[in-house]
């Protein structure tokens, strides 16, 4: 089971949508089963699955989610159980904890209560092992075996982010072609090691989301702006990986800017973006297996 966490302290870079699309891309590959966790208390992904653009709820999911809350089977309840002093983690993982979007794409939704993890009401030392133990429970349950698990992390360093980052195989950082996103990459890379240690720092993959094409008859691959910030990202990554001895890579594959991607959670990946996501996944997989 490969675990992949997507994080960026800067909001609005398209973190949730690209994580979802990557999960969907992998789930459609032969013999691959994917699980995706929404760990962001803002619940962007969960809400995108719950209601459509007009605010009409998707009945199948909302019915399931109501039962999940009633039976105290949300991710927050799992965390609560985990942090209660006890000799074992008393939380059974089943179909009331994991929602089946399709046969090969499954989902653990977020719940508003996750905001408590931002306030650090739980013991930091206890929580750090939570995701590791939860994945162990999933692996040992009667549920199908997952090849890849994605985590959509909050845009902050909450206790849950800490728990995910201390056990995942790769951290994905989506950036946008703008100054603040590149500046944010610099800050995030500099703080990751500090925050994850003494756990080993996972591999870190950076990729450009919303890459713009050049205008007019230009034969360049990207717009000047996109190319400049991509070059800057390379420079930042080279510097940080060299100085902090971290395994960081900027992927050559980028996700082009498309308005239609906003509806990808409900309507699937737009056709012209399927190939870029496949190419990006190929690079991520290669980096994972390095």
């Amino acid at each position, binding site marked *: 089971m490969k675990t992949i966490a997507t994080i960026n302290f800067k909001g609005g870079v398209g973190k949730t949508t690209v994580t979802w699309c990557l999960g969907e891309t992998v789930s459609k590959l032969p013999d691959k089963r994917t699980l995706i966790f929404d760990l962001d208390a803002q619940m962007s992904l969960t809400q995108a699955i719950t209601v459509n653009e007009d605010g009409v709820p998707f009945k199948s999911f909302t019915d399931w989610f109501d039962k999940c809350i009633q039976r105290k089977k949300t991710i927050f309840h799992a965390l609560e159980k985990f942090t209660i002093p006890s000799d074992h983690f008393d939380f059974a993982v089943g179909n009331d904890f994991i929602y089946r979007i399709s046969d090969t794409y499954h989902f653990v939704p977020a719940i508003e209560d996750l905001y408590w993890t931002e306030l650090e009401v739980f013991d930091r030392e206890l929580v750090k092992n939570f995701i590791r133990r939860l994945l162990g429970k999933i692996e040992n349950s009667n549920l199908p075996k997952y090849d890849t698990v994605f985590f959509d992390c909050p845009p902050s360093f909450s206790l849950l982010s800490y728990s995910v980052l201390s056990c995942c195989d790769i951290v994905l950082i989506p950036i946008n072609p703008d100054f603040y996103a590149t500046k944010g990459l610099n800050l995030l890379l500099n703080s990751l090691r*500090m925050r994850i240690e003494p756990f080993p720092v996972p591999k870190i993959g950076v990729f450009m989301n919303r890459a713009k094409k050049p205008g007019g008859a230009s034969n360049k691959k990207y717009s*000047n702006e996109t190319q400049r910030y991509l070059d800057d990202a390379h*420079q*930042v990554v080279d510097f940080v990986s060299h100085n902090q001895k971290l395994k960081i890579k900027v992927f050559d594959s980028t996700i082009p800017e498309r308005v239609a991607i906003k509806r990808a959670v409900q309507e699937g990946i737009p056709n012209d973006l399927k190939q870029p996501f496949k190419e990006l996944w190929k690079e991520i997989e290669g980096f994972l297996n390095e």
Partner: protein
Amino acid sequence: MNNEELLQEILTELKQLNNNFKELFEFVKSSKKPASKRSPKIKLPALTEEEIKGCQNKFAELYQLWLDGFESKVRDELEKYSVDDLRRFGDANNLNVTSRMPKDKVMQQISIRFREKKLLTQNINISKPLSEKITDKEINLKNDDET
């Protein structure tokens, strides 16, 4: 002067005024310069890989000079370029230069990019793990106690 005479006088004056205006219009029309024809756009050949690399290396060299405080030296170097070469230099470095952009605008773009690069990289530092930071703090407190 009776009314009839007065009317005749006014009409003559008006006729004269009309002629004057006609002459004035003719004069203005004839003195108007024909619209200057724009010089035909000469399309320069696309930048070669080698040229791009060279321009990017030069940009990095000038940026380092600029960082070291030799702003006027950088300006002098850029001033040596012809406007076309400077535009190509900007384009090779992915700046948004257009084929008619004046030299000072291109120079401005280069200067903006220098400042942006500086801002992006100025905080690159090696952060210590939290445990080391605490140790440092403790050491400082200890030193304070001793003093």
